[in-house]
């Protein structure tokens, strides 16, 4: 029994999720009339997107250092 995903799989997953969330948060924070009607906590969404982006960067750095 072991976790079936490798570091590169997780890195790819994090990158895709971070891109989706960053684009969503950017579109929502634009002050259009339509986005103003979406009542979610936009600051938290941006925070989650940034956290995923940072997570992806950490996995990249880890993979870089694994080579040495």
């Amino acid at each position, binding site marked *: *029994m*072991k*976790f*079936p*995903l490798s570091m590169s*799989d997780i890195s790819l*997953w994090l990158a895709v*999720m971070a891109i989706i*969330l960053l684009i969503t948060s950017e579109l929502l924070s634009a*002050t259009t009339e339509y986005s*103003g009607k979406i*009542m*979610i*906590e936009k600051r*938290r*969404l941006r925070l*989650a997107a940034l956290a995923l982006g940072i997570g992806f960067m950490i996995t990249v750095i880890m993979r870089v250092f694994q080579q040495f």
Partner: protein
Amino acid sequence: MFPSLYGKSILIEHIETLKVIVCLFCVEKYMSREKKEKKAEISATSYLLERIRELQLQVENLKSELENIERVPSVKIGIAFLIPGVAALIFSVVKESQILAFIGLGLTFWGALFLFVRPVRYVKSKLLHSASLSSYLTIDRIIKDLKFKGKSYYIPPYPEDVYLPEHLKGLKEMVVFISANKHPDMPSIEEIAKSRFLLKNPNGICIPPPGLGLLIQFERTLGRDLSKVDLETVLEVLPQLVTEGIPLAKQLEIEKEDGIIHLRILNSIYKKMYNLEGPKSVHILGCPIVSAIACAIAKSTGKVVTIKEDKISPDEQLIEVWYSLVAGD
């Protein structure tokens, strides 16, 4: 039969005594009426004070109710994603399946995200307007009852972190002074420190500003005490706060020209307050947005701020207010 001379003088004396008694009776009656009027005046003032206290309690209750509503999480979708997600992850470890792991990771992530980024509950703007109306009507009554014809003066508080002795603690409260006449002296520090409602010298009343709650909300959103922020920054940040942070108006512009600060609010949620049937005190104190901005300017500059003039467009869309800074702290 004619009365004797002696009897006549006694009669005159009696008449004089009667006159004095009647006079005394009249004076006593007048005095008792005056006393009654005074008593009625005192009871009216105490009734108004009691009413203010009741309204403040109601506002506090409404605030806590609103907070409770905001706290109710929309967890159903989050849990619906989270449970199968965690199950899929566990099974993926047991079966060593990559597909199950991806599905589990995705579901768990979106479930957690739905819990984290939950929708914020909003109330209708009409409700906000009607909730604040009663406070203005009460202030209207007080001003009418006390026959005040003055202006409002927003007195800046001392910063929270400044040490003050116990008897001066009242100076840390933001207050607005409504003067009895148009050109009053400012109340002394001792008078403000006592946190009194009715002030004798100068004649007027001191009340918490109607925009105090909004000001606290502005400071929470900014994460800073406005008494430590310079005026230029405050004027730069406020439009964004009012239109985006806490959407209370469609557009807000603030300009500073020679000690006069000109505010323009487009499509404010409190615009109905300014119509002819609305409370008169809104022109003295300003609506909650105008009042909160006056408080912010007073806090930032450390100077007394007064509303010089206000104007509303005929279609009630645009509210214009001119603030002036009163010299001295």
